């Protein structure tokens, strides 16, 4: 019956709080990179081997994966009228795994030296 436990509710709100400054930082970074006329090699030169960028985008990926998977669970259950708790969990965990693995792969590719 319960579509969302109090713990999931708190996790989603907490990750939203975390994502607000991270998204702003990400947007500022994009504007600086474009305005500065950096090409991909120059960007990679700055991000590769940088623990700071790895931490920033690592945290970003974890927060997005948690926030989005809880949200997709609710959206899927409302749009497709999914009532079974088991199916709702399956939607949530598969979204989490896809976002975490693709996100971690991207962070690794951009920051590993």
């Amino acid at each position, binding site marked *: *019956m*319960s*579509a*969302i*436990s*109090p*713990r999931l*509710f*708190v996790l989603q*709100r907490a990750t939203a709080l975390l994502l607000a400054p991270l998204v702003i930082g990400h947007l500022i970074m994009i504007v600086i990179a474009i305005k500065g006329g950096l090409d991909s090699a120059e960007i990679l030169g700055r991000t590769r081997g940088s623990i700071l960028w790895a931490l920033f985008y690592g945290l970003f990926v974890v927060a997005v994966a948690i926030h989005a998977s809880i949200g997709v669970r*609710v959206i899927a*259950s*409302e*749009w497709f009228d999914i009532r079974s708790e088991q199916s709702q969990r399956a939607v949530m965990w598969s979204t989490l795994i896809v976002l975490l693995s693709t996100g971690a792969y991207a962070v690794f590719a951009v920051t590993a030296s």
Partner: protein
Amino acid sequence: MLDVVTWIQRNADPDLSYRFACRVGMCGSCAMMVNGVPRWTCRTHVERVAQNGQLSIAPLRNLPVIKDLACDMSEFFEKWQKSDARFHPSETRHDDMPRIDPHEKQRSAANAAIECINCAVCYSACDVVNSSTTYAGPAALNRAWTLQNDQRDSNRASRLQTLVNDSGCTSCHSLANCSVHCPVELNPSGSIAGLKRMVFSATLKGQL
């Protein structure tokens, strides 16, 4: 608008069913869709809502229709009960009256949300009610919020527990259609946001 509906029944369609009682915006029984918007018809002027001289009147959205403009309000009120949106006294008639400062923060929050007339305009305006068969809706949750701020109520902890599921406050998407359309200008969306804050802090404290 209510006068128009009454005119239609008396002069054009004697078979027309609709519901009203007080005619002065107190009882909350005459709500209908007017040009696609839920409104209390007794306090709605035709000249303010007519579009190019046209009016369309329909039964409230999100509720089963009994006949013509009369809706079945059962599920609306059953959801109040399921949300435990009713007062549980903490004292008996033999106890002294509790002393509550009317300007105190919790009492002010309850007062701001207390004047609901149960018209179901918010329920009809809510898109979450429209997409979820179980969601309690703004009116029931607004009432629950007033009780969560009532120091005399004895069931606040367990009520908060009943509000954290797919029928409760955590399912609200904060679209605020309820607050936009509420005829008595309450803010059910704000009340639900308050309930969410209560759920958040109670969970962090390990009470949920």
